[in-house]
């Protein structure tokens, strides 16, 4: 009796992707896609900072992943392998295209106090965060995203980016510090708004 794919390890699924049984191979791909697509997409979106570019690289990453499964039979760390493919594609893309700096001026302007509620809406905060991340150097942004959004250990990040653990720690520290400084005016607003709104709710 066949085991459900959800119970299979990454390595087993990767091996199944190269199986001659096309249906089984696709099902294994679907399972790995469900497990790691969010990580890969977060990585691409944060590194490239542009939705369309991120989608292109994301698709290309999984296409190459599928192709490599047809050629190789063993894989020891599937998520790291996927992220390495995505990383190579992202950095190639950044090398060939000039990264955008269009948000820089806006970010250094503190938010106006005319409509603080609107400033605090989630979508706008998301945009602000996105813009702040876009201002970080790609290596710092990458280390931060892998650590804070994807939740990898320093050792795993070091393995993916090909640097030492201490170098990765420094990158994460500097990225967070830069981000804190960039977001400081917005964060104060956010905190002020939260405090005042919770005070209003109290009877």
């Amino acid at each position: 009796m066949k085991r459900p794919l959800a119970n299979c390890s990454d390595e087993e699924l990767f091996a199944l992707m190269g199986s001659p049984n096309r249906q089984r191979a696709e099902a294994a791909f679907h399972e790995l896609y469900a497990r790691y697509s969010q990580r890969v997409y977060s990585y691409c979106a944060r590194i490239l900072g542009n939705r369309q570019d991120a989608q292109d690289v994301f698709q290309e990453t999984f296409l190459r992943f599928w192709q490599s499964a047809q050629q190789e039979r063993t894989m020891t760390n599937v998520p790291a392998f996927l992220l390495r493919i995505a990383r190579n594609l992202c950095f190639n893309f950044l090398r060939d295209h000039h990264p955008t700096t269009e948000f820089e001026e806006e970010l250094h302007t503190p938010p106006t106090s005319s409509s603080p509620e609107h400033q605090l809406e989630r979508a706008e905060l998301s945009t602000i965060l996105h813009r702040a991340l876009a201002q970080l150097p790609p290596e710092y942004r990458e280390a931060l995203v892998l650590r804070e959004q994807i939740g990898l250990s320093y050792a795993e990040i070091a393995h993916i980016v090909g640097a030492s653990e201490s170098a990765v720690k420094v990158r994460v520290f500097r990225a967070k510090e830069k981000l804190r400084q960039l977001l400081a005016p917005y964060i104060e607003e956010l905190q002020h708004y939260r405090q005042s709104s919770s005070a209003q709710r109290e009877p």
Partner: protein
Amino acid sequence: MTSAEYLQRLHELLDGELPAEAEEGLFYALAADAELRAALRQLILVQRALVREQPSIPAQLEQQLFQRLGFAEQGIRQRWQTGAIAIGSALLGFALGALLFLRTPEPSASSSPQPSPAVLEMALPMRAPAALPALRIPIAPPSTAPQPSLSEPPAAVVQPVPPQESPIATFTPPQPSPTEASPATLPESIQLPVSPGLPLRVGIRFLGLWQQSSPEATLPMQSSGVRNLCLSVEQPLSTAHAIALEAGSEDFPQVFSSERTGLQYRQRPTLLWVGLAHHWEPSAEASVVPFLHTLLGGTVVGPVGKAWVGSAIRLGERSQLRIGLEGTLLLYRFEGQWFSTRKLGISYGMAFSR
């Protein structure tokens, strides 16, 4: 220690990498330095924002990818095949139930269980003498034997049939009281319901033995609690119709977009729903009967409608297994726009009469 060094310590603290021996010094510095405290607050908020603001994968991106890989067509074909098998099975089950129901003869004196004398006394308080010839018809046809009367010896009438199989053999007509003698109040037939009250039913149903949803969202479910389960209480209105109060918990894949931000959201929350249902199931002696169950209800995000069609298999006097094809429609609003989730699946459950 300089403030820059303390700042680095703060990062280490939030990262879970601060050595224990450095904690005391940092906490003293935090107590004394308002700027450092502000930096800590800012770092916490930045970290939260980073974790919370995950970019979501657009639904069409997934389709495009699978199409490029050559999966999409096969996937759709496979879904259609699976769906067709499921729908076919459910329809077959329903047809089988309907067939068995239609082929089952109407309950009659000869096929129904023998009522006890006590029950007959209740059902036929006055017309017992008139009802007796009707009971005797299958035993002794009028063309071959003269119509007997109560005054004749029973042995002569029931000779072809063993005496214990005839209710007449053991029936003792009660003495009517003067108040019961009015013909207007007398029951006309022996097929009156034996029990005047219809019993309340409780049911439990498991949703999605097999399930397809549109839109699909390949996301993990957002709750680890009870889900895809429904409980109901049914009050029969007649032998074929019942109304039910139902409550259930079910996961609904949702894909919706914001016109304002241009973002597309994908989620798979587990929602509680409550609704009022109508259950139709023909009363029959067959062990398998078809049923149709429809529900209108609501969730915290919007209205929900369900239709469940299938077969009920009688397992005993008071219990039955129900299995069938269930369709669900959930409507919800986001930024003034309506979105929907449609689900089709096979559900099964048990119903128990009190």
